């Protein structure tokens, strides 16, 4: 869809954070809003953890995702597509419960106006059955697609509980990348970070360095991921990695506490640390403007 510049500025606001994914990278970080007729944007929702119950952490565990769906539907400009970056459901050891949660999740997000939705599993969805239940509902766990000049690659670093891609998927990635030009616009979606953000907390991918090595020859690569339930920005060489907030509970900053536990609910600031983001792609310039939203759709 085309976005009118004035509407786009209303949507994202002057405070949008612009990230360059080219060689200039974050050195070009600015607070300048920009838009052109050929811009498009997508929404990233992550770590919805449907099925999670702990009132001390989120007393609105059955309402948070629904509020986010409503907030996305209320965006004045609807995104071209919506990407869910894993942990759609909270883990259950029961196979039937897992399917029930995936089914409930699918019912809830079916209320989204935008029907072009893309999915990937998190370890909570796929770590116990190698993605079997997820595939029944949402199809492949790793794949690629193209949209308006950007090549999107969805990688699965959760179906193997050892936090690895494995040789087969890496070979698939290698073959997929060989079809791209060195300056192609490439966006990668993963659940876990590709780099060693904090391995002690499982915030890494054991063979993620191999994937990064394959991506390095390409000059315009940006990675969006979930898993860590907070906004985080990092660079490996010229490749930018952006973690998204979750929609059930926030987690502490990497290594900031001895044991990783969800941050308790703060009644004075309900839904704090939760939210979703929009990502506006400036294809020609290989830049991405990230706007963060609260659960209720307030631009942060």
């Amino acid at each position, binding site marked *: 869809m085309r976005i009118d510049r004035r509407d786009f500025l209303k949507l994202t606001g002057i405070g949008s954070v612009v990230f360059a994914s080219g060689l200039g990278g974050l050195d070009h970080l600015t607070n300048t809003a920009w838009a052109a007729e050929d811009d498009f944007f997508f929404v990233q929702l992550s770590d919805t953890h449907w099925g999670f119950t702990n009132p001390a952490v989120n007393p609105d565990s059955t309402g948070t995702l629904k509020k986010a769906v409503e907030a996305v539907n209320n965006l004045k400009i609807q995104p071209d597509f919506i990407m869910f970056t894993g942990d759609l459901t909270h*883990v*259950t*050891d029961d196979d039937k419960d897992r399917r029930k949660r995936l089914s409930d999740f699918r019912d809830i997000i079916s209320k989204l106006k935008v029907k072009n939705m893309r999915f990937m599993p998190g*370890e909570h969805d796929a*770590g*116990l059955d190698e993605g079997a239940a997820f595939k029944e509902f949402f199809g492949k766990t790793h794949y690629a697609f193209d949209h308006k000049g950007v090549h999107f690659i969805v990688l699965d670093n*959760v179906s193997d*509980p*050892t*936090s690895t891609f494995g040789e087969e998927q890496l070979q698939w990635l290698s073959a997929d990348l060989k079809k791209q030009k060195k300056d192609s616009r490439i966006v990668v979606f993963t659940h876990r970070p590709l780099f060693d953000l904090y*391995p*002690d907390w*499982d915030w890494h991918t054991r063979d993620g360095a191999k994937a990064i090595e394959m991506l390095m020859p390409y000059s315009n690569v940006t990675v969006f991921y979930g898993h860590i339930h907070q906004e985080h920005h990092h660079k490996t060489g010229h490749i930018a990695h952006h973690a998204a907030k979750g929609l059930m509970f926030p987690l502490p900053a990497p290594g900031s506490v*001895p044991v*990783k*536990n969800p941050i308790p609910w703060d009644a004075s600031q309900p839904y704090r640390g939760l939210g979703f983001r929009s990502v506006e792609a400036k294809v020609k310039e290989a830049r991405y403007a990230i706007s963060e939203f609260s659960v209720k759709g307030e631009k942060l």
Partner: protein
Amino acid sequence: MRSVKPLFVVVGIGIVAVVIGIIVFLISSMDSPAMGEEKDQMWMITAKRFEYSPKEVTVKKGIPVVLQFVSADRLHGFTCPSLGIRVDIRPGKVNSVRFVPDKVGTFPFHCDNFCGSGHEGMRGTITVTE
């Protein structure tokens, strides 16, 4: 009867002495630690959803430790970042890791292969004493 040359006698005795020496060395290295060394500290740990048994291990500093793991149900992991050791615990086999603790203290370990609803609580400690 021909006389045996002294050189052959010396060589023969030397060979016998070397063979005996090797045998003695092999037997001694199998049955007891070498002079100044101590036996490995052995621990057998069972991993199952969502606990280790035992979950508290005490070892001495400077003496090699062998941790042997078996899984009672599915794939688990063991990692103790402070001591720089980790191993996958695969069911149906004994999974081992050997290390020499070089510092005193109590160091947490946990499962680092996602194993289910109680995965985050699957933890324990290794205490290293002087």
